């Protein structure tokens, strides 16, 4: 178990482990033996290792759901629901601002400066960013574009959606937690039968 010490610490601290955030650890976690070892170790802590549907990101869940665990999950869930719209809007904004033809996925790189430059020149993007920054999930008090963007990216880094490889360089890599977010949305959509389509209609294909 010693060799997985740092990995266990990260997991216990609530980190999501994916190929981008920690490639070595991710490879270890894909092995069934390691999963068993870790689960065995985590059992007394009432934790277990879980992953999203396509095993692209790992995190810790409760083993048994006692009252305290349920309370924690409820508040966690409330936060997740509250963050859905700001996160989706951010995804859309980045995609449109950087002129990408597809949504952000794990491993994509975003250069902060490029994002700022393109937003600066475009009034409507500027306005949307302004609105997004003042959302309580990001909660920016500043009116300056540069500060708003920095805050947004810092918050996303804190939440584990982005990785900043060098703390003094302003570029970020999207982590596998974005897959988790998409899975959450898809789950809610399916479970609640929301009228939210994700398959292109026949017309779009033609």
């Amino acid at each position, binding site marked *: 178990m010693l060799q997985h010490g740092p990995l266990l*610490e990260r997991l*216990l*601290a*609530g980190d999501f482990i994916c190929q981008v955030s920690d490639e070595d650890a991710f490879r270890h976690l894909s092995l069934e033996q390691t999963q068993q070892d870790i689960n065995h170790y985590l059992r007394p*802590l*009432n*934790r277990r290792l*879980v992953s*999203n549907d396509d095993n692209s990101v790992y*995190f*810790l*869940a*409760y083993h048994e*759901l006692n009252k305290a*665990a*349920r309370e*924690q*999950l*409820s508040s*966690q*869930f409330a936060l*997740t*629901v509250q963050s*859905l*719209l700001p996160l*989706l*809007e951010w*995804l*859309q904004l980045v*995609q449109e601002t950087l002129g990408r*033809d*597809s*949504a952000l*996925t794990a491993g994509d790189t975003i250069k902060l400066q490029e994002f700022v430059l393109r937003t600066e020149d475009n009034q409507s993007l500027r306005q949307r960013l302004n609105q997004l920054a003042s959302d309580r999930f990001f909660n920016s008090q500043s009116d300056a574009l540069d500060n708003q963007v920095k805050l947004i990216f810092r918050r996303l880094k804190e939440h584990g959606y982005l990785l900043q490889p060098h703390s003094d360089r302003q570029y970020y890599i999207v982590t596998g937690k974005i897959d*988790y977010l*998409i*899975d*959450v*949305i*898809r*789950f*809610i*959509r399916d*479970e*609640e039968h*929301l*009228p*939210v*389509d*994700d*398959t*292109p209609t026949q017309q*779009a*294909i033609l």
Partner: protein
Amino acid sequence: MAPLDTGVASNLFSVGAERLALLGKHHKALMQGYLDGFIDEAAFSESALKKLIAARILWRPDEQQPLALRPLVSELIASMVADENRRQINADVAEKLEQIRNRVQAYRDAQYKSDYSVAELQLQRLTEHVHDLSGQFEEAIDSLWHRLNSDFGFVASLDDKIRENERAQKQLRRLLDGLVLLDFNELIELSEGNNQLRKLLVSQLQNQLSSHHSSLLEVQKRLVELLARFRQQQSRSMLITNMAAFLRQHPKYQPADYPNRSDVPVLFNQAAAIQPQAAIALDKASERQILAELVRALPRAAVINLPDQQSASFAAVMEDEEIAARQQALKTDVENFYLRVIDKAGPLSALDYLTEHQLSWDSEIWLYQIIAEYQALPVDEKHMFAIKRDEVPASAVNSLLLIRDISLSLQAA
């Protein structure tokens, strides 16, 4: 087939060379025509246009249409510059196979007649056909890999990429079908008893085609994977757009209470963070040595950072904290006093309050802090309080006024 006499051959040579030179001579204008899809006739002289048309480089598809490059020329350019938007893939194997059969027959006939120069020529043509056939696959495979490796970057939108990928897959299927047409038993039969033919048609062609076959299968696998990824991206984009739109339209939307279901979905079972803490254990004798080293290592760094002033600044910090704590307590008491004033309708004397609540503050400090707090209020809040000083002259001869007490009351706005 009769051998070409040298006169025709040399004529062919001169015409071909002249026409190829035309391509070079007008290279810029022709390339512009390739990009625009039509030829700017003003860029050429009358006679140059005539020559280009006669050389079958340009043509007019329709009376109403401007001049354009002949499809074969466009194709040549597309292949030279690997322009995947325009590159053509020729998957027609049957025609080539037919030509190969005919050439083999002609070659055998010539040999039978002992007409060796003709046989030589036929073998030459046959070799070209075999290379053409192999080259046709090679060109197609090169084009497919090129498109694959650029992630279909030559088209802009994801929808176009998906369509291009599907088109590539269809081409690939036609190529594979074409490969199936090549029956090696037939080729072996064709080359029966002739070493040169066997080398050309069996060992060489078979080798090349089997490597093409495995390349095609690899490309096919990658194309299918890429298409799956494109579709995934597409569905992700749509999900994001549509879910965001839904949430915007229903700002009050609240999903079911998943964390309190009997069976919590794993996605919402995200355990709280545990930060592992550790401290030095003193009970293990065996580790004393290590601990001692650690301890020795610690202050050395501190000494470097902190010169002589260490003890003085340490004491100063302590004192500051104590004062700050007392200051804070005083402020809290004064705040409570203000709150009491707000609750009470009439004026409230500061000193009465002090004795009533048995506060330990010196009365002078108490009054001073109340005045200070009053001065610190924002202007509009200042108006809410009426402050009244109970003052007396210092003595009969000194008109300095001393404050003996303060009474505060809430003022009607």
